[in-house]
């Protein structure tokens, strides 16, 4: 489904995370949409199979919106619960256990935030929580900095995927350090999925051109003027970037090389 555009031209393998196999390399969030109907249409337009959700208290004042599962069909999409908003390893573990109890799967998108202003990860707490949750049988997908050493430690801890940021959550600044992302991808055996920071389709394309296994985004789609159209653009950009990576780009040169023959010119 998700690979219709590229399928005739390149051979790609499915995205495999923790024993599960996915066709789409674009993973999307469900936060910040102005209404659920728009969200549902955007998710559809994105072609994403993995969709993230957050764990929160239910509103006891039932005049408020129902839970998101009234709008998502867990038999059609893969629900990936996150631990967004957790500032300690202990909190993140508590949220992960609650999410697993909801009964959909053993996967958790682990976030341990270290700073309210930048929402950058607390890598010490992240490693602690990752180790504990892996011991408890979770398939941990760890949101982390674009730092190779932390990524390696997370892989050693048994994470199912490592998810370095392109730039801070919700910033839309795009891929700030392609070199770091390429380095991480080159050194890790587990899937590397860039999570957070993409602002528009070109960001998604450039990120995928680095060779990473997937891309997770929320705000870039939800806060677009037309989220459904942007979701479609992100799907194309993710596929374009992936296809370009597989196609192998030409070398960079500091000199010009003519595209047209230099022989056969009129004398």
């Amino acid at each position, binding site marked *: 489904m998700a690979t219709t555009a590229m399928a005739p031209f390149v051979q790609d393998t499915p995205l495999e995370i923790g024993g599960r196999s996915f066709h789409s390399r674009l993973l999307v*969030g*469900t*936060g*910040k*949409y102005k209404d659920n109907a728009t*969200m549902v249409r955007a998710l559809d337009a994105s072609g994403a199979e993995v969709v*993230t*959700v*957050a*764990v*929160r*208290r*239910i509103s*006891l*004042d*039932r*005049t408020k919106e129902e*839970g*998101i*599962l009234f709008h998502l069909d867990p038999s059609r999409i893969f*629900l990936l*619960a*996150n631990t*967004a908003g957790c500032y300690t390893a202990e909190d993140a573990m*508590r949220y992960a*256990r*609650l*999410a697993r*109890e*909801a009964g959909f799967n053993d996967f958790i998108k682990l976030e341990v935030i270290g700073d309210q202003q930048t929402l950058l990860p607390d890598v010490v707490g992240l490693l602690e929580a990752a180790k504990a949750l892996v011991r408890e049988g979770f398939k941990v997908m760890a949101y982390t900095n674009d730092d190779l050493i932390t990524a390696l430690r997370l892989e050693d801890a048994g994470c199912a995927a490592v998810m370095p940021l392109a730039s801070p*959550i*919700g910033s839309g600044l795009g891929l700030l350090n392609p070199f770091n992302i390429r380095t991480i991808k080159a050194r890790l055996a587990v899937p590397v999925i860039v999570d*957070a920071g993409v602002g528009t389709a070109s960001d998604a394309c450039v990120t995928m051109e680095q060779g990473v296994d997937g891309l*997770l*985004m*929320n*705000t870039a789609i939800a806060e677009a003027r037309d989220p459904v159209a942007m979701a479609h653009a992100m799907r194309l950009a993710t596929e374009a970037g992936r296809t370009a990576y597989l196609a192998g780009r030409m070398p960079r040169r500091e000199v010009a090389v003519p595209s047209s023959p230099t022989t056969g010119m009129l004398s």
Partner: protein
Amino acid sequence: MIALLPRLHAVTDDRVVGAGRVVERAAAMAAAAGATLAVHVRTRALGGADLLDLARRVRDAVAPHGSWLVVNDRADVARAALAQAIVAGRSGLGVRDLGRVAPGIPIARSVHDAASARAAEAEGADFMVAGAVFETPSHPGAPAEGPTLVAAAASGGRQVIAIGGLTPANAGAIVEAGAWGVAAIRALWDARDPAAAASSFLAALPATRTVALVVNGESRAVSEGTTLGGLLTQLGLDPRAVVVEHNRRIVRRDALGATRVAGGDEVELIHFVGGG
């Protein structure tokens, strides 16, 4: 949450008042039920002066036993007779205006469906009288809403007194459904021995104490012995859509019905929301 709201409510109407001996019968019930009884003076057949006279005599008869006097609609009479609560009926003043006339007296709202219960919460009712729960000769032809109405009314956290066709035989089930207590007209006033009828009701009420929990960070009173499953029912929540954490321990869905809460317990009810 009214800490000492009685659980058994002997409600009068024009017929009961017209039949006489209201004060005598109220006194007999008060002697049997004490602080668990509230006697409601409710009639449109009497003018202000006669109504106040009746209310005062009822109060003088029941107060020595710790029972409450409750007056319907007439905040002026309630205040003059030192009533412990007022019930706002359908056609009288609203809860806010009753409160202006009789500040400091708890006010209940008479509710008949989920929408009127939500409206009662919005206007600041302290508790609710919900009915008709079962079929009753007072309202022939009116649909009996049953335990569903009680659960819907109680879901906002206010105490609910169920009314309409209540007997000692069905009172227990209604309290299980989330009612704080029960109200009756015929089953009490028409009994040959109203005191014995009151005692039968009290024996049928399953729990006589409440405990305070913290549910999602908010204080909430429930009957002692309430299970987590019962709490979800009272809140109108589908157990399949909620994950329950009880004192920091996750309780599996199949164990909710067997897990009882105790005073001071912390309960978190969580679900999935949109997130990145």
